[in-house]
């Protein structure tokens, strides 16, 4: 599936479904940050993980 088609499909989901995806993405970010896989200081990791 092309990226625009995938984006359109994801955008068409209900807000509740999108929030569930956000929560999975957030948990993955947390797990990556906690594993130390990212280089740099803890503060740098926090900034890097903050997408908003």
């Amino acid at each position, binding site marked *: 599936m092309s990226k625009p088609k995938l*984006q359109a499909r994801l*955008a068409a989901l209900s*807000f509740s479904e*999108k929030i569930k995806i*956000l929560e999975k993405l957030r948990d*993955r*970010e*947390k797990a990556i940050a906690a594993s130390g896989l990212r280089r740099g200081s803890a503060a740098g990791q926090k900034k890097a993980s903050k*997408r*908003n």
Partner: protein
Amino acid sequence: MKATLELINQMQADGVIGKYAIGGAVGATFYLAPAATVDLDLFVTLPKASGLLVSLSPIYDYLKSHGGTEQDEYIVVKEWPVQFLMPGNALQEEAVNQAVSTSVEGVPTRVISAEHLVAIALETGRAKDHTRILQFVEQGAVDRNKLKAVLERHGLSTTWNQFERKFLQGA
């Protein structure tokens, strides 16, 4: 998120806050494909009787008494770090007043309109804000006429024209 919004709604019902609306990346997710974020940005108004001194302390006190914990500029509410933002200008006040009603897993909530999210992002003007504006435009998630009206009302037309010239030539 459901539990977070339930507590925010209870806080509103208890008179600690007035209106609120979800902004930031979570707000944008209402209109766009989900994008990773670790926090929830909430624009809140305080009850009219709050007086001249404006403080987020009552919000923090309430949430801490209901299990919230402070973490940097956030308060973690039921696993979601929440940043409370009070409208700092007429655009943000209008954004809260004209927010869209929706629900998350049956819990009622409000989200800032796509046009106001774009206008606020334009006003904020960081690289990630510009990226988000482009996502709104490219995914056809913003009503150009409504956006134009919001931008004109809040003196952002020139900034938008510059943005268009720089990033949206031919779009």
